[in-house]
Each structure stands twice: as C-alpha cells, then as structure tokens.
C-alpha cells in the first residue's frame, strides 16, 4: 500500500504538536469512489445531516446517496437570462428610440429585428454571470479558511483521496459512535479534526488589509487627477499624448505658402473656369445690360423681359427695400433713414442719396445701372449682391421707381373722379 506522494512527505513535516481547540468533526478516508458512495448512504441512513463527501472529481451517484437536493441554480440562471434580455432591449429602446430617436434609412425608430442580436448577447451575458457567480455564492466560495485544511490527509482530496467528513455540530454526533460507524462503513482511516484555538488563525492577517487599502487608494489617484482637471482651468496647451491629427503638413486657407511665387496659400480662380451654378449667362437679368442696337453693352432701360412685373413683385420689392435700403435711404427714399438721422444727432455727417429727387441722378439712371448699383455698390455704399438674390434686386428697382412716381406726383396723377376731394 503506497499512498505517499513525494510531496506528502514534505507536507507531513508540519509540527504535529499544534495546539488543538474544540473538536470540529471527523474525517474518514475510503479507498474507492464506490465505497465512498456506500459509506455516504450509511451515514445518511444513520440520520446525520451535517456531513459531506470530498473527492478529486465528481463521483456520480453520490448525490442520491447523500440525499443532495437539486440545486436551484438553473432557475436563477433563467431569471438572469430573462433580465438580460429585458435590459438589452430596454437599453436599445431607451437610447436609440426614446432618448435620442435615431432614424436609419427611413426605417421605424423602433424596429425589433435589428435589436435581436444585442438582446441575444445580453441574455447570454447575464445568464453566464448568474451561472458563474451564482455557483460560487451557493457553494459559499471563495472561502479563505476551513478547519479540514489543518489535516494533511485533506490536501490529498484534490489528488486521489475519497473522504467523508462529519461535523461535530450534527445532533447525532458522538466522537466514539460516529468513528465506529465510519469504520464499519469501510473507512481505511478515521481522523479527528480540531479547531485551531488561536484566534489569529481565523482572522485575515493585517498586512493583507494594508495591501488592499493601499491598492484601493492608488487606484483612485487617476480618477482624482481627472476630476481635478475637469473642475479647473489651465492656460497651458494640453498634452498631445495622441496626435488626433492636430498637426498636419497641409496648407490652410489664407495662410502663407512659400512653394508658390506669390507666397499665398490661396490659389484663386483658375482662368477660363467657372464654379458650378455660377454661369449666369443672361446679361439682362444678371447684370442689367442690354446688347440691343450695335451689340455693345449698354445699361438696360426697361426691366428684363424674363421678369413678370405685377403687384406681387412690387410688394416683394417694398419688403426687401424696407429691410436693406430704408435704414439709410429712408422709407420714403429721401435719404433720411434712421442711420443718417442718428448720426446727425451725434453731430456727424452720413450722406445717403435722395432716391426720389426728380432732378437727381437716380431718377435719370437707366434701370440696368440702378440694378448694378444695388449689386456692386457706389461710393461709400457697399454691394448687396451677396445678400439679395437677383430677382429681389429687380423687385427693389421696381419699388424705387414706384417711390419716385409717388413722391413726385402732381394733381394730374389723381384720378379724375377724385380730384374734387384733393385741393
């Protein structure tokens, strides 16, 4: 009978005179798994409840012999998995359909088929967590200390030993008769196990607490630094741990670039090219020019033929005029808008042309020139081409003509049947 491992001998060198405290229980060794099962059955039949069998691998048949009830673990896992499914779907619904509704390719905001893969994965994930952690919790592990670990024999349970331990707290336990029972059940050895009387044997050493606390505090340092950085301001440039493409060898607009002779990064428009949508070939509409007669351009006298002149256009012109022109030229066109009046009260001079003076330049201007002035400006007046679309500029031209007519109207302009009413 050779049941000594080489390492067993070293393990046996532990001092056997360790002080013994209270009796914890007895541990019996059996030769084969089958004998362990039989012994377990006998121990259970004798009415013991606080006992357990120990083996290097799961011995099949022992659950029934010991009367172990089926674990509730599968039920817990079902609960965990179901929770995972609900949480997975809730996460997707809340984030993508409720908190920030996210329209993808015109599909419904909440379309279940596309949410199934993640729902499935969260189901599995929570099931796995429940299984793994649930099993350890039900097994009351991790456990740093157990009385049986005091016995050298117990170290062999992970190698080749089949052991049965009965705890002294069992109501039927009696040192003599329990050992006798185990011996009769076929034990090749029965050993008593005593608790270590020293209290420090059952407490975690202080240095372990020190390590845990130190590690915990150290782990908080990065978070503390982040919290400080978030709550404070700094004029220093930030650390570029990651480039983030902040520094790139490229020319930015309006910067110098020595490669070109003129040292300008901007290259301007290439001769003979046009930007998309900027052809504007109709000279009368876009530039107010006429090529009638000898073919040389001259200012258009009338309005462009493509423009439909009606009250709607005139209304549009009034509205645009009141926005863009009235601040200087005034609502009546006499050049006494809000800005010239304000500048005058401050003691300065702000000249705005009187648009309706019958002897003035504007009254004599062809429509095309007036359009050009609105577009490109004149003297201190800036051009409005960037702000007012072409059609609206023509509408303003039309309205200015209407203003001139209205401001310089004579008695002959009053309809014949109303002349008596005006003096």
């Amino acid at each position, binding site marked *: 009978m050779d*049941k000594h*491992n080489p390492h067993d001998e070293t393990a046996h060198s532990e001092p056997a005179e360790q002080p*013994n405290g209270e009796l914890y229980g007895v541990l019996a060794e059996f*030769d*084969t798994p*089958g*004998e362990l*099962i*039989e012994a*377990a059955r006998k121990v259970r039949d004798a009415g013991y409840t606080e006992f*357990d069998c*120990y083996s*290097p*691998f*799961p*011995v*099949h048949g*022992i659950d029934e012999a*010991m009367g172990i009830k089926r*674990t509730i*673990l599968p039920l817990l896992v079902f609960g965990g998995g179901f929770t995972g499914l609900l949480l997975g779907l809730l*996460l997707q619904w809340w*984030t*993508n359909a409720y908190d*920030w509704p*996210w329209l993808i390719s015109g*599909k419904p905001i909440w379309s279940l088929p*596309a*949410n199934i*893969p*993640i729902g499935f*994965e*969260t189901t*599995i*994930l929570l*099931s*796995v967590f429940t*299984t*793994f952690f*649930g*099993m*350890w919790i*039900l*097994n009351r592990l*991790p456990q740093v200390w*157990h009385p049986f670990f*005091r016995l050298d024999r*117990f170290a062999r*349970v*992970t190698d*080749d030993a089949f052991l049965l331990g009965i705890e002294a707290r069992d109501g039927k336990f009696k040192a003599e008769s329990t050992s006798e029972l185990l*011996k009769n059940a076929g*034990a*090749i*050895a*029965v*050993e008593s196990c005593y608790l270590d009387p020293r209290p420090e044997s059952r407490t975690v050493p202080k240095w372990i607490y020190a390590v845990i606390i130190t590690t915990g505090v150290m782990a908080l340092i990065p978070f503390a630094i982040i919290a400080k950085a978030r709550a404070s301001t700094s004029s220093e440039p930030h650390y570029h741990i*990651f*480039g*983030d493409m902040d520094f790139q060898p490229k020319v930015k607009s309006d910067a110098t670039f020595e490669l070109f002779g003129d040292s300008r990064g901007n290259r301007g428009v290439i001769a003979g090219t046009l930007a998309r949508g900027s052809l504007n070939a109709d000279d009368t509409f876009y530039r107010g020019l006429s090529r009638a007669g000898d073919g040389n351009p001259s200012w258009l006298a009338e309005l462009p033929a493509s423009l439909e002149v009606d009250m709607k256009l005139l209304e549009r012109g009034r509205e645009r005029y009141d926005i863009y022109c009235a601040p200087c030229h005034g609502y009546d066109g006499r050049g006494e808008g809000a800005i010239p009046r304000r500048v005058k009260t401050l003691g300065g001079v702000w000249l705005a042309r009187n648009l309706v003076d019958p002897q003035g330049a504007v009254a004599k201007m062809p429509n095309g020139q007036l359009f050009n002035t609105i577009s490109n400006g004149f003297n201190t007046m800036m051009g409005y081409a960037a702000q007012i679309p072409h059609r609206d500029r023509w509408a303003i031209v039309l309205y200015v003509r209407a203003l001139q007519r209205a401001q310089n109207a004579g008695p002959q302009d009053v309809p014949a049947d109303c002349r008596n009413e005006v003096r």
Partner: protein
Amino acid sequence: MSTDVLSSDSHEERKIGATREVFRQVTRDVAWVAESPKPPKAWYAALAVSVSALLLGVYCVTVLFQRGIGVWGNSNTVGWAWDITNFVFWIGIGHAGTLISAVLFLTRQSWRTSINRAAEAMTIFAVSAAGIFPIIHTGRPWFAWWMIPHPNDMGMWPQFRSPLMWDVFAISTYAITSILFWFMGMVPDLATFRDRSTSKIKQAIYGILALGWRGSARQWHRYERAYLILAALSTPLVFSVHSVVSFDFATSQLPGWHTTIFPPYFVAGAIFSGFAMVLTLMVPARYLFNLKHIIKDSHIEAMCKIIIATGLMVGLAYGIEFFIAGYSGNLYEQFTFINRMFGPYWWAYFAMVSCNVLIPQFFWFKKCRTNPYIIIILCIFVNIGMWFERFVIIGTSLVRSFLPSSWAMYSPTFYDIGTFIGSFGLFLTMFLLFFRYLPVIAIAEVKGVQPEAHAGKAH
C-alpha cells in the same frame, strides 16, 4: 492534532490503493509540467521567438498610433484589408476551443477532456489577438470606449442597429464567457496545484486562484450543474459570434459580401480553422510535455476527421456562392466572382481553395491522421488557406466595387505584416506561459472519465 488511523481488518486481503494510483498518475502527469524546476529548452526557444514577434507587433502598433492608418496599405478603396482579415482569422480560431469545451461536452464526447483545457485557453488567447484589430483599425483607438453605451458630454448613444455594434457586444460577451468558463473549469485543478505546491509563493498564488475549493460533493453538485449550463450557453453563443462577424459583411450592399449564406459559412470555416490550430499546437505539445497517453492518438484522429467534415462544408459554401452568383443573374455579383477566380488576386483564390478544400482530403487516409509531421504540415496549410479565405472575401470585393474609377489594388506594408506577426507573438506567448504555469489538462475531468472512477460501485 491527534491522528488515530484505524486499519480495518476486513480490507487487509484486498489490494488497497490500486484504484487511487491511477488518479495519482494523472495528477503527476499533468502537474509535472508546472512543477518541474526547469521547462524543456524548446520551451525557452519558443518563448524567445514569440516574445520577439510580440515586440515587433508592439513596435508596429506604436508607429500606427503615432502616424495613423496611412502606415498600412489600406486606402480609400480598400478600407478593410489585413486588419479585418486578421480579426476574422483569429476569432475563427477561437471558435474551435468553445466547440470542444461546450458542444463536445453536451454531446458527451469524453475524448474531449484531454484537450478541452488547452483548447479553451487557445480560444481566450485567440480572442485577445482578434480583439486588438477592430480597435486599432479605427484610426483613433483611444476613443474605442465610445462604443460602450454610457451617458456622456456629447449626449450621444451608440447606434445599436449597426452590425459593428452587434460585433462589440458579441465579441465582448464571448471573451467574458470564455474566460469565466475557462477559469471555472480550472478551479479544481488549481486546488490540486495549491495542495501540491511546496513554496509559499506558489501556495499563495494557487491558493487565491483556487478560491478555497474543497472538492466536496455538495460543491461538485452545483459545479457540475454550472458547467453544464455554461456549456449550454456557450453553444448558441459561439454560433452567434461568428454569425454576427459575418453580418459585418452580409448586411452591406457590396457584391461578394451581401449574401445570406455567410453566417453558416463563416461558422463552419471558424470551426475548421480552429481545429487546425488546436492540432498545430497540441501535436507538438504532447511530445514536448510527454502527454501522449492522455492526449491519445485516437483523440488526434477524431480532430482530423472533424477537419475533413468542416473542410467539405467550407468547400460546399464556395461552390454555392458561385452557383448563386450565376443563378441570380446579377451582373455585379457575377463579375465579382469571376474576378475573384481570374482577377488580379487569382492566386489568393487558388491558395484558398487548394488549402481548404483539397489538402484536408489527405485526412481520409489513416496514415495521414496518425503521422504527427503530416498532421502539422496539413494543419498549417489549412490555417494559411483560412487566412486567405478572409483576405479573398474582404480584398477582392473591395478592390473591384461598383465604380470602376475607384478600383484600386492593395499590397501590405511592413507595418501590416509586422502587426500580423505581432498578433501571433501575443497568442503564442500567452499560450507558452499557460503551458508552463497552469493546469494544461483538465485533471479532474480526465480522472472522471477513467474506468477506475467507477471502481467499487455496486453495479
């Protein structure tokens, strides 16, 4: 401590301890690898090579982080190249480990016990190698945490209807499950190591890892339930993971990707490549660490047969893809597949077909299934073929897309190759460390399938 050993007279005539010698032998055979003061010289040589490869990878990834994706051969046209090829390649390799540990467990294939631990370890290391690529290929990997749904300053959430987000959930669930399953399976064996350790440091480390395992029947009862449940959960998980990986391609509109056959096709390919990798690693390991009587010839043969079966499935998928391209009448689909076979990457296509469909056919011969050298060579070919399969799918579809003006070619740079070699370095380094310090074979499970595990029972 009082010890009162009672020697029972009724047992004197029977030879006590013969049964237990079998279990002790199993413990010794596995534990010596971790307990021997010095591992074999070949282990040091392999570790040196692996760590060098790993350092090369670290260098390449550092340069990548500093200078951007431009250091790779990727371009506007070929946005995915070796990065995603390597990702799918490694994920596929991982799948065989789960298959061995879960599916073969559920189907009661007891031969799996000899290799499941190493195969599960392979899964975890392969998933680690795989997980690097999708993160580094984003260009600014330091923002990878944006994929984790969390309330943030931007008020933004991930887009959960994108297969790329499904990938994040599938791969991380898979990695977590694999690690927990692997660790849980290892706890009883770590307890064995704990109880055999003679040095204080080893006792402390293995003791913490073993969580105070006592091998009690009540513990084993819940443990076995949990193991069964984890196996049952891992089985659909492993199928879902590679299906989701295939959705990355299948849900796009690109000819050659947009096909419903992808999920089963990818899963079969994953198992195929994974078994090839298990054999590539385990055949030398069983010689190196003298585990031939635990990992038996019949186990190796069984894996070779799985390679034939999955190789044929992959071959069938290749055929179906061509049939569907022709049968669909879709011009773009037809062009893509003709281009795949006769286009600029014809050599990659033929490497894939010959390595994946033709070469595994050698395993029909018993001679090839029993000769370790032939097995390793054939399995390496299968691994090469499976890498090419992913490159063919990704590369040939991208270089010739709908718009001929954007057609381009792809060729790897030094950094592409270095990163790939680095992923092998990571995988092998972790594997070698595992082999040296952890129970490489599921000791408790192997004991449980010995005939002696039923010794002394009434029936």
